[in-house]
């Protein structure tokens, strides 16, 4: 499983089609991947497992999200005012 993810990360070109967000507006896609990355990190860290598989979500949200959004959300997470559930 981790080897598949490593292989996929090496062959990564861009965010793949996500059938949950088929339309032009990809806002929710960006938001969902950002949340998934941090949830994955939190969950795998608490289990003591290597967090490398979470990097898939990180690549996807870095592809999709505007940098200003990511910086804003990171600041909110540090302040504790982040509106999403992680």
């Amino acid at each position, binding site marked *: 499983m981790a080897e598949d993810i490593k292989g996929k990360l090496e062959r990564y070109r861009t965010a793949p089609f996500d059938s*949950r967000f088929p339309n032009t507006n990809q806002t929710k896609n960006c938001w969902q991947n950002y949340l998934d990355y941090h949830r994955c990190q939190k969950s795998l860290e608490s289990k003591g497992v290597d967090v490398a598989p979470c990097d*898939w979500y990180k690549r996807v949200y870095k592809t999709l999200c505007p940098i200003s959004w990511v910086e804003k959300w990171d600041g909110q997470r540090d302040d504790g005012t982040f509106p999403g559930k992680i």
Partner: protein
Amino acid sequence: MFGTMYQHGKKHPGLIPQFCFLILGMSGAGLYLLRLAKGPHVTWNKTNNPEPWNKLSPTYQYKLVAVNTDYKSLKKEGPDF
């Protein structure tokens, strides 16, 4: 409102097509809104069912008319949580 429309329609029968298109358009928009509300696009219950779009298989068709997509795609993620 429909009473007024009926009276005006009797006095000026040329208005009837306009009323028909108006009713058609408004009901079409309303029905599509209901379709979106019932589907997995909106979070109605934040505590019990947040993110209902995550609960379906990746082959579920979200669009009404899907012309070009082949829906046998695979889920590309690191399974966790």
